């Protein structure tokens, strides 16, 4: 293989082409608006001239001799019959005209001040950055542009006006672009430095165009329609207009046409050139297609999200990627992803043939592209690529030797990057190891749903296969799921057991006693085969089963969700049960301690085992919810009814007092506010109380178990289902609008009672009355709108933040600096700690102290 030559771009400088540069760099002068001759061959001197590049297969570029896709395209130029103002520089021309003398062309600043200002600007630029310098320039220029007489030649100055978009007037007389250009030519280089222009490579008269660059055809390719007709690009259309008008203007000038006609054509040329650069100029009607569709010209191409810069330059696309629906698989490891076999046979990994893997890679080639695991291509040492087919297989096998690269199918253990949009944080794209499975969906461990924010209601995810050794190494070392367990946002874990895994372990450690045989069976199913820790007795306790998974030297003291003590001594769970606060994400303290002591890989493995155990337990024990879970005894039911009734009556009493004028206002509030507040308070109290009653009385059901251990649902959910839904609130207050003086037409006007203002006293199980349902719908819609309005807002905030801070990095000296090495922080976060290496943002002093202080005892 030939040694790769890496060119590195050091810097990019920006400047403006001089007319000479335009003509010098051009390969063709465009003189005719025609595009093709009768045979459909590009016309010489036309806009599709072959010297400007090729867009047709088979043709060769007349400039560089290369074919389609090889030739980058070359610029051409046209000579304008009359100068034209460049729309994008109108602002600068205006400033220059106003700040320079109409007769001598000097800047309207007295000689003695010019030098002083230049040095001042330079120091400002050095000390405060170019933005400050720019502001200073603006200040200076506006100070002098209204001067009455020139300090250099004492000529009286006329007032220059700009009539948007591009017409200049001096007093009442219009300045033609020729005159404007003449004025600009008179300015002196030394004067112009004050404007901040780079005078080494710039003259102001260049921004009044006398020649214009024609972009290469590769930049404006035409497309051939099915009918064989050619459809030209918008830019070509626009350029055609420019060339046509320009030619006509030439002809008219040469023929000595009346000034009016020439002026008109000149204006038209100005219009076309303006819209060529920017078709969205405020004061101009945009140029359109015959159908009325607005042309997309240069500025439109660059701007906005779909523009060249954000869409094509900053947004990259890749090969070797896949996308499909995701589905859960609790049996798969945390850092694995299940991939459909069909995908594994299309996506490939390049592997180089060496002395040691020759036989191994031969097998892939032997299998060909149709049989898994096979290979699709080989790359010869000279860089040529060959497809492996039934015909070529034997030939390839014969020549296959060291130095060849085989693009083989994916096999278990290959690395892949897995991603779900919106990619809001770095855990949205993690590295997984591939496991090729039957089926058509990606399979992933439910525990990694949280960092991706994924669920399985039809979500799709993307997968990328890194193709180089460096990329694979980085993916494996930096992006593997287990390296991302601790969130850099708050220093706690983002993965943990969820749903069934929590419920299962909770039940296991809380109440289950299983036979030893069953325990062994369950443990074996989650990958344990050392049962020496399991006590040798007929029946084993659930805690003992769970303890088998823990490392032998692990000690832990903590609390479970209900506040009871959880104690693990030497890897044996002594007291307490495992629930969300020990196994779950974020709060998962036990897992967090394991992570600190045994490292990421061990934790990921343990998490997988615990999850599988939980699910195995549920599969054996059985776990299901039904509507019966929400049943209450008749006494409880009545008790709840009473509570609500009492609260309602209390509210009615308050309302009564209010109307009678007996209600006393709380300090700092009006009577109305007081009433609202007290009603809300009393109703909420009733809701909470009935919720508590319900929680106490509900039969020990599956729904309750889930709420207790934190797997899914909470007390409020259960209360809403069994007891009372409660007050519906809009913007922190009761529902109070809708109709005149009432919320719904069902109620009387000025009815302030709980039920008329959105209190739902039924529960979801008993069902809602129509008006209650309406209130529920109102808050529901409000929440929906809130989310819909919030998403773009927060998205924009995120974009701004990431754009502003993306180049901040920690230097080797520990300081945080931006790309121009300006110090932002002397020590990151004031103590130099990486949040993802800390426990909720701090070094865990307590653990160390406890550990060492406790050692000797």
């Amino acid at each position: 293989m030939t040694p790769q030559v890496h060119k590195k771009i050091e810097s990019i400088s920006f400047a403006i082409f001089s007319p000479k540069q335009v003509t010098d760099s051009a390969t063709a002068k465009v003189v005719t608006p025609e595009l093709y001759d009768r045979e459909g061959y590009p016309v010489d001197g036309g806009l599709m001239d072959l010297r400007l590049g090729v867009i047709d297969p088979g043709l060769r570029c007349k400039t560089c001799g290369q074919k389609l896709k090889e030739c980058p395209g070359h610029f051409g130029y046209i000579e304008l019959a009359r100068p034209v103002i460049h729309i994008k520089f109108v602002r600068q021309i205006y400033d220059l005209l106003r700040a320079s003398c109409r007769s001598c062309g000097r800047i309207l600043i007295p000689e003695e001040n010019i030098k002083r200002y230049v040095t001042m600007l330079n120091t400002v630029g050095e000390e405060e950055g170019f933005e400050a310098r720019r502001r200073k320039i603006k200040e200076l220029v506006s100070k002098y542009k209204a001067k009455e007489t020139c300090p250099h030649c004492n000529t009286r100055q006329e007032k220059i006006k700009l009539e948007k978009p591009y017409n200049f007037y001096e007093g009442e007389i219009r300045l033609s672009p020729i005159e404007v250009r003449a004025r600009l030519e008179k300015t002196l280089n030394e004067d112009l430095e004050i404007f901040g222009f780079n005078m080494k490579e710039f003259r102001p008269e260049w921004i009044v165009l006398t020649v214009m660059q024609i972009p290469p055809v590769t930049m404006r390719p035409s497309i051939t329609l099915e009918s064989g007709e050619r459809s030209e690009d918008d830019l070509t259309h626009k350029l055609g207009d420019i060339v046509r008008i320009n030619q006509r203007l030439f002809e008219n000038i040469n023929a000595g046409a009346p000034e009016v006609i020439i002026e008109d054509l000149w204006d038209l040329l100005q219009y076309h050139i303006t819209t060529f650069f920017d078709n969205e100029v405020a004061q101009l009607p945009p140029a359109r297609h015959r159908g009325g569709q607005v042309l997309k010209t240069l500025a439109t191409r660059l701007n906005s999200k779909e523009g060249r810069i954000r869409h094509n330059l900053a947004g990259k696309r890749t090969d070797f990627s896949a996308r499909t629906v995701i589905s859960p698989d609790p049996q798969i490891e945390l850092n694995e992803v299940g991939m459909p076999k069909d995908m594994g046979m299309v996506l490939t990994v390049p592997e180089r043939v060496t002395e040691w893997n020759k036989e191994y890679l031969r097998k892939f080639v032997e299998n060909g592209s149709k049989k898994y695991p096979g290979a699709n291509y080989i790359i010869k040492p000279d860089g040529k690529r060959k497809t492996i087919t039934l015909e070529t297989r034997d030939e390839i096998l014969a020549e296959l030797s060291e130095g060849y690269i085989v693009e083989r199918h994916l096999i278990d253990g290959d690395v892949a990057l897995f991603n779900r949009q919106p990619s809001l944080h770095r855990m949205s794209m993690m590295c997984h190891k591939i496991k090729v499975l039957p089926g058509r969906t990606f399979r992933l461990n439910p525990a990694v749903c949280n960092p991706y924010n994924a669920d399985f209601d039809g979500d799709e995810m993307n997968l990328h296969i890194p193709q180089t050794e460096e990329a694979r190494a980085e993916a494996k070392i930096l992006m593997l799921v287990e390296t991302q367990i601790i969130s850099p946002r708050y220093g706690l874990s983002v993965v943990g057991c969820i749903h069934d895994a929590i419920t299962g372990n909770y039940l296991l450690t809380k109440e289950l006693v299983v036979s030893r045989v069953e325990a062994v069976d369950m443990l074996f199913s989650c990958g344990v085969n050392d049962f020496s820790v399991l006590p040798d007795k007929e029946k084993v306790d659930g805690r003992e089963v769970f303890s088998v998974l823990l490392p032998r030297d692990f000690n832990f003291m903590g609390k479970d969700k209900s506040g009871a003590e959880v104690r693990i001594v030497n890897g044996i769970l002594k007291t307490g049960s495992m629930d969300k606060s020990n196994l779950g994400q974020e709060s998962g303290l036990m897992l967090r301690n394991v992570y600190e002591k045994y490292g990421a890989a061990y934790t990921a493995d343990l998490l997988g085992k615990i999850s599988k155990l939980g699910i195995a337990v549920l599969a054996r024990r059985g776990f299901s919810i039904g509507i019966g879970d929400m049943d209450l005894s008749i006494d409880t039911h009545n008790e709840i009814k009473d509570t609500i009734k009492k609260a309602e009556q209390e509210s009615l009493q308050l309302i009564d007092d209010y109307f009678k004028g007996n209600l006393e206002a709380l300090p700092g509030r009006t009577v109305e506010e007081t009433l609202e507040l007290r009603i809300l308070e009393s109703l909420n109290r009733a809701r909470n109380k009935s919720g508590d009653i319900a929680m106490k009385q509900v039969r020990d059901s599956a729904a309750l178990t889930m709420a207790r251990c934190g797997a899914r649902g909470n007390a409020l959910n259960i209360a809403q289902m069994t007891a009372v839904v409660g007050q519906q609130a809009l913007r922190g207050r009761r529902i109070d609008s809708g109709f005149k003086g009432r919320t719904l037409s069902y109620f009387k006007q000025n009815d302030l009672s709980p039920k008329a203002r959105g209190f739902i006293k039924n529960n979801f199980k008993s069902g809602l009355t129509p008006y209650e349902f309406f209130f529920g719908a109102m808050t529901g819609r409000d929440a929906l709108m809130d989310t819909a309005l919030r998403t773009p807002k927060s998205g924009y905030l995120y974009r701004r933040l990431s754009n502003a801070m993306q180049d901040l990095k920690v230097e080797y000296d520990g300081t945080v600096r931006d790309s121009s090495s300006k110090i932002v922080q002397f020590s990151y976060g004031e103590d130099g700690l990486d949040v993802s290496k800390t426990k909720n943002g701090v070094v865990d002093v307590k653990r160390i102290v406890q550990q060492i202080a406790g050692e000797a005892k």
Partner: protein
Amino acid sequence: MKKEHEELIESYADKLSLSVLDEVKITVPADITKEKLSKIMEEIVAAYESAKVNPGECVGLVSAESIGEPGTQMTLNTFHFAGVSEMNVTTGLPRIIEIFDAQKEIKTPTMEIYLESKYNNLDAVKKFAAKIKETLLGELVEEYSLNIFEQTLKLTLNKGLLKDYDLTGKEIIKNFKTKMKNFNLDSEDNTIIFTHKGKAEEIKELYNLKEKVKDVKIKGIKGIKQVLPVKRGGEYVILTSGTNLKEVLELDEVDSQRTFCNDIYEIYEVLGIEAARQAIINEVYKVIQAQGLNIDIRHIMLVADIMCANGIVKGVTRYGVVSEKASVLARASFETPIKHLINAALEGEVDNLTSVVENVMINQPVPLGTGLPGLVTKMK
């Protein structure tokens, strides 16, 4: 704690951060031996060192992600009522945006005024609150009567309110006598009478006067629209709607070390850039806490630092922080690309490709993380 222990812990001051040292002092049991303590310290230093950021870590992006990602979970349109319904505070996402934009006019400016201990009793607080509240003449007026023939305007003031504010008509007149050139002022009890000096026939002037008089400040501090004394952990704090930090801080009763407002820009002007930075951190953190989100303070610090890095408060907008970037392409890739390209061309700017987007654009490794170090090898 024994003195030698304390000394031992202090000796690690150059290796550990202050917050860690403080925590050690609290957690270490008093009866610990010196050997064990030094062992603990060594362990902590090791833990601290291992938790340090790696060089090249793109902390900026991590912070942006950490704040941007939970942004979707924040609520919109939430107002937190701090008592009176007129006195609510913007919270949630709109407030975060307001702070990061460094808006000069914020939606709900408020202050928290802490008082010196000797003024910390209910009476003094109430009196003080009444003193600083901006009172406009219009609020006191019960009745306006225009006498066209005599060219007079007579204001009848509310007696009860006058008493509450401890004012008389005469005192009020003193306040704005100098401003009224064309009128003679006179006061009796609770009335104020304006008489036109000249013999202008126009009633219009009187009408104008009536409108103008309404907005005349007669008492309090400009901008303090509402005051609400609340008790907070044994002392009284005065919450206000409307701010005027400069004048409030000058008052004797005010504990000027703890009193603050939520207007970042005002804090910057009165107390300077370091205070503004801290104010940004505090305000953002407060919102995040109220939303029940968990974001490490370091991320907010970094945003605050980049906003204040130049000595003035800059918003995270195309006019603020982003416009300061050295790279043309980085600025162009944010917003208004054409403007940036045009200016760059005129000034002959050079993009040295030192940050992220430019290198993404030209397909080169970005100088962050693993892209930062170069490798130099001798080729045979």
